[in-house]
Each structure stands twice: as C-alpha cells, then as structure tokens.
C-alpha cells in the first residue's frame, strides 16, 4: 500500500535518509526543510501521513502541528524529537500528534509506525471480526478460530493477536506492541516480547499449514495477509 508522505526535517542528512528509505519502501515522498514550507505543503496538498521534526527553523514543529489541527486537517502526524531536547511525548501528542519517536531511531521502527498511521485512515471505523487467511477473530464474542478449529487464548494473547491482525500486512515493532498491548512506553532490555509472540504462535500457527505470524528481521513481527498477497501476486503476474 503506497502512501503519500510529507517529511519535514531541517537536518538535510536525516531528511535524505528518511525520504530515500521511504521511497525505497514504495511510498511517494515530499520533502520540506523548514516549518513554514512544511505547513504550506501540508495545507496545499493531501498526504496520507506526515513526519514532522520538532525543532525547525522559521516555524517550530509543534506550532506547525497546532496550525494544521486548527485548520481542521486531521492527517496523521508522527513527531520526531532530537536528542538533547525534552523528551515530551505527552506535549507532542497533546499538540495533535499521533505518534512520537525519539532520535536516533531505527528506520524500520519509523516505517512500521508510519504504515500503521497511514492504514488507520482508510480502515473502516468499527469491525467486529478480524480476519487473515483462515484465521478469524470475533471481537464481540472474544473467540478465535482457524478453519473450523477453536483456539483458546489467554486475555493478553488475545490482545496481542488483535493488534497483529489490525495491522495485518504491516510490520509491528516490539516497541509498538508494548505500547498497544501492554500500554507502557519503555525499552525492554531483553527479548521479553518475543517469548509472548512465540507462545501465541504455538497456539495459532504450529498445528496449521500456513504460518501467519512472521518475524521480520531487525524490525518486528507481521501478521501475513494471504488475501492481499495473492492479489499482489496475481497483479504482478508472477
């Protein structure tokens, strides 16, 4: 799913690194190197998601964000905060931001979060059933089944599977899982999340033909979406 991304960053090295990386991942990128240019671009054109640095010349990042929101523009914004600044997620999110990353960050983290933000826009508001391949999760009844086999999950495992399903086809990083499933923002020293995922796999993937939960090296995890994979294969005629 290709997105139109606006990257507003005054450090040219970072700007290029991020923009090139996003283009290589298949997205269309518009660049802006100061706050005024960024605000102008955001208002003039329509973007799926915006990457906004906090410290910008001419117009400060949070002020760009506030102006945008005041205009009624609800484009998802991911805020970047440089080292040596107050690491203030709450302030950034309150100003209207949707996600927050502190530099230096791994590009895969940025990409995963951007794609999650971009997807949010197009997804229908309320779904009661989430699906991937033959896996089906009933959010109301709190049941999970693959094919015709019921799967018993602990509450936390259910939440974990839900997040992966909601982001099917996208990378979800470990930090994202911690935030969305456990609601804490912290750096695990060890692979504590991996063990939870592997237990989930044991229940959801092990006894079935096609493994759905995929490990993405250096990034995180992804719930495969066989439907869109088949469509992509069909489209590329391979």
């Amino acid at each position: 799913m290709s997105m139109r991304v606006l990257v507003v960053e005054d450090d040219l090295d970072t700007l290029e690194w991020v923009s090139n990386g996003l283009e290589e991942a298949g997205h269309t990128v518009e660049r802006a190197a100061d706050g005024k240019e960024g605000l102008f671009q955001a208002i003039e054109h329509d973007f799926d998601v915006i990457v906004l640095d906090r410290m910008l010349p001419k117009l400060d990042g949070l002020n760009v964000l506030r102006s945008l929101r005041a205009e009624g523009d609800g484009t998802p914004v991911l805020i970047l905060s440089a080292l040596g600044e107050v690491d203030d997620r709450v302030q950034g999110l309150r100003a209207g931001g949707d996600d927050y990353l502190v530099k230096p960050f791994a590009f895969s983290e940025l990409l995963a979060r951007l794609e999650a933000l971009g997807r949010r826009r197009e997804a229908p508001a309320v779904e009661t059933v989430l699906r991937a391949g033959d896996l089906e999760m009933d959010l109301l009844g709190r049941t999970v089944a693959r094919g015709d086999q019921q799967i018993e999950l602990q509450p936390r495992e259910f939440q974990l599977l839900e997040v992966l399903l909601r982001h099917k086809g996208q990378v979800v990083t470990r930090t994202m899982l911690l935030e969305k499933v456990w609601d804490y923002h912290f750096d695990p020293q060890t692979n504590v999340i991996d063990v939870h995922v592997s237990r989930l796999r044991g229940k959801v993937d092990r006894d079935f033909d096609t493994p759905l939960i995929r490990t993405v090296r250096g990034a995180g995890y992804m719930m495969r979406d066989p439907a869109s994979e088949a469509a992509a294969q069909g489209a590329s005629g391979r």
Partner: protein
Amino acid sequence: MPWREMSRRSAFRVAVLYSALVTGSALVVMGILYWQTAGALLREVDSTIDAEIDVLADQYRRSGLAGLRSLVSQRLERTPAGDNVYLLQDPQGLHVIGNLHAWPDEPPEPGGYVQFGLGSQPGPLSTLRPGRGRIVELPDGYRLLVGRDMLEVRVFQERVLSGLGWAMAMTVLLALASAMFVGRSIGVRVARINEAIDEIVSGDLSRRLPTRPEGDELDELTDHVNGMLDRIQELLTSVRQVADNIAHDLRTPLARLKRRLEAGLAQSEDQERHAEELEAALAEADALLATFNALLRIARIEAERRREEFGEIDVRALVLDVAELYRPLAEDAGKRLETTVAAGLSVHGDRDLLFQALANLVDNAVKHAPSGSEIRLVAEPEGATVSLRVEDQGPGIPACERERVFGRLVRLDTSRTTPGSGLGLSLVAAVARLHDGEAAIEDNRPGARAILRLPAGAGVALSAAT
C-alpha cells in the same frame, strides 16, 4: 582596610546601625530623665509662683491695693533675701514696693512667664542671677510681678544636663565599641569561612570547613557548605568513573565492530560470509547505540527532574503488569515468577519510568537466578514508604559491591560474560532519585533482593478484581 571596602562590609554596617539605634534610644531615655528631674523642678517653681499670685490676688480683692501692699511687705520682711521676688509698680512705672530693682526688659514668653535678672546693680542678664516670674495686670494700671530666684534651679539643671551629656557620650562610645567588637568577631568568622572555601575550591576538593558543635547560624552554614562540597565531590567522582568506564566498556564493542567490518571487507567475494559479517557488525552497532541511548536517558532523567506529568500510580496494577510481561520469559528460562502484592498502595510518579525500573530489576533476576528457582515480586507498605522488591535465589551480590553496582556501566566481574550494558541498575537508581526514593540491594539469604523504596501516595481504592 581602605574606607570604601570597609564601608561595604556587612559587619561594619551592622556596627554603625547598632550604634545609631543605641544612641537614639539613649537620647530618648535621657530626654525622659531630664524631663522628670530638671523639667519637673521648673514646673514646680512655676506652680509656686502661680500659687503665690493666687494668694496675692485674693488679698487684693478683699483689701484692695493697701492690703496687697501690706501683704507683700510682710513677705519681704519675713525673708528679705529670700527666693521670692516681688515688684509692684504704679501706672507711671514708679516702684511702689518690691525687692526687684527694675521692671524686666524682656518680653514675656508664650506661657506668660518672663525671665529677668536679679542683682544689686542693673546690668546685662548674663551677669545677674536668673529669675523667673509672672506679671499680673491690676486695674488702675498697676502692675505686679511675682517671681522666684532661679539660681539653684539653673545650677541643678546644668548639673543634670552635664551629667546626662557625659552619660550620652559614654553610651555612644560603648555602643560603637561593642558593636565593632561583635561585628568584627562575626566578620572574622565569615572571613575565615570564605578563605577556607577559596582554598578548597582552588586546590584540594577533599578538604572540608572546620565545624564547631555550637550550632549557630554560621555553623549551620558551614555544615551546608560541607554538604555541598560532598555532593560536588560525589558528582566529580561519578563523572570520572563514567568516563573511565565508557572508555573501557565501550572501546571493546567498538573494536569488535571495527574487526567485523574489516573482516566483511576482506570477505567481499563470498557473498554469504560477507552478509554475515555485516549483519554481525550491524548488531554490534545497535548494541552500542542502545548503550548510548540508555546513558542519555539516565542523564535526562537526572537532569530534568520534570514532575509535572506525575500521576497517582496503582502499585498493584503496575507490579502485576510487570510480572505478566516477564512470566513467559522467566518460565522459558526455567524460573518461576511469583508475586506478593498488597492492595490499595499507590505512589506519585511516572508510570513508564517506574515500569522500566521494575522491568530492569526483573530482567536482572531472570538472568542471574538459577534454573528451577523462584523470583518473587513484592509490593508492601513500609512505614511512610512503599517497598517494591524483586527477590531472587541466585548468587547474590557481595556486600562490598552493593552500592557500586548502581553506578553507570558497572558490571561485576562475575557478569562480564552475560549480555547487558551495565546501565540497568543506574536507570533504576536515577528513577528512584527522581521519585524522592532510594534503590538498594540487600541479601535475600540466599540470593539478591533488589529494593525500590518510594514515598507512599494517597492510596487507591481497592477494586473487586484480584
């Protein structure tokens, strides 16, 4: 000491101010004294004169001029050289009767009293004896002066004034002297403290100001300065230590990184090996980056001390969340994770930081506890604090290392081979300090007991769910 410098000294100013105040007070006291003594005497003379005038006026009313004359004459006969002064003049200004030779030249004072000179000869007022009296205008143009000889009164007044004057002078001198003495003694103490501080700061930071047991304000100040010097030394030592540790601990991963990259370059023909080396190099770089990030995070926590985003944290929920997150990891490593959490406890703080701190402690426990053993998370009240503990049955930490282990980048020799940056406990300590609490390691007999003690919050309502 040159005047300008001296006049700026607080001790000097205090001395001057003190002297001025004492002088002012003394003046007031002296004034009252004078008024009570010499002043009273004068008032008495005046009332005597008035009383005499009353008597004479009465006589005049009853017996007319003749009666008055005879009474005055009687008075004069009784005490010819006495203190009372009389003078009766007829309308032409001629002497009728009296012991005053001439009518006073001076005009009367506002109170109706008049000063005049007494004496056998007429002359300037200053050479004659002082007198004071009152003039009564009689009908028919006669005038009567009634007065008193004031010499003794004046002499008394002068004596009192002179005495008071000397007293004032002595007071001022003594005040100045004692003020300077007191001021100097304090000034000397302050100067000594300043000198000692100068010496310490420019030279040996391990010295401290000498203290006295008396405990007055200057002693308190000295104690505080010593406390500050302790803290400065602590910080300097810590900085030195960190610099040393960084050099030591981060040089190795950097060297490994370099080796991998070089090996990767050399291996450029074999694609698979090439990729392997580069991936390993990337992993080293990531580990280094993580270490630096952690260092920065700790520094930020310590420097910023931002507490506006603090909230009331449900301790039970926090501990259970940590346990739930780490249980699978612990179980896979063959260890059991148990909890003993009191309900209703809360602390005022940052939820994410506290979670991180506890998580770091649990991480350590999982790494060091032996297979099959139990790791217990405990949260319970301890007086006015909440005690959060992670207890394991591993090898424990020797008593002599239990404080050092909270320093940055400190790895015990026993753990040098296990993964970890040496910053986990530093972060715990920084979070503890930010929350006005403390972090410590105790003996779990056997094993280690890592404790985070925080001031208790207001408490949370007990929920029905366990």
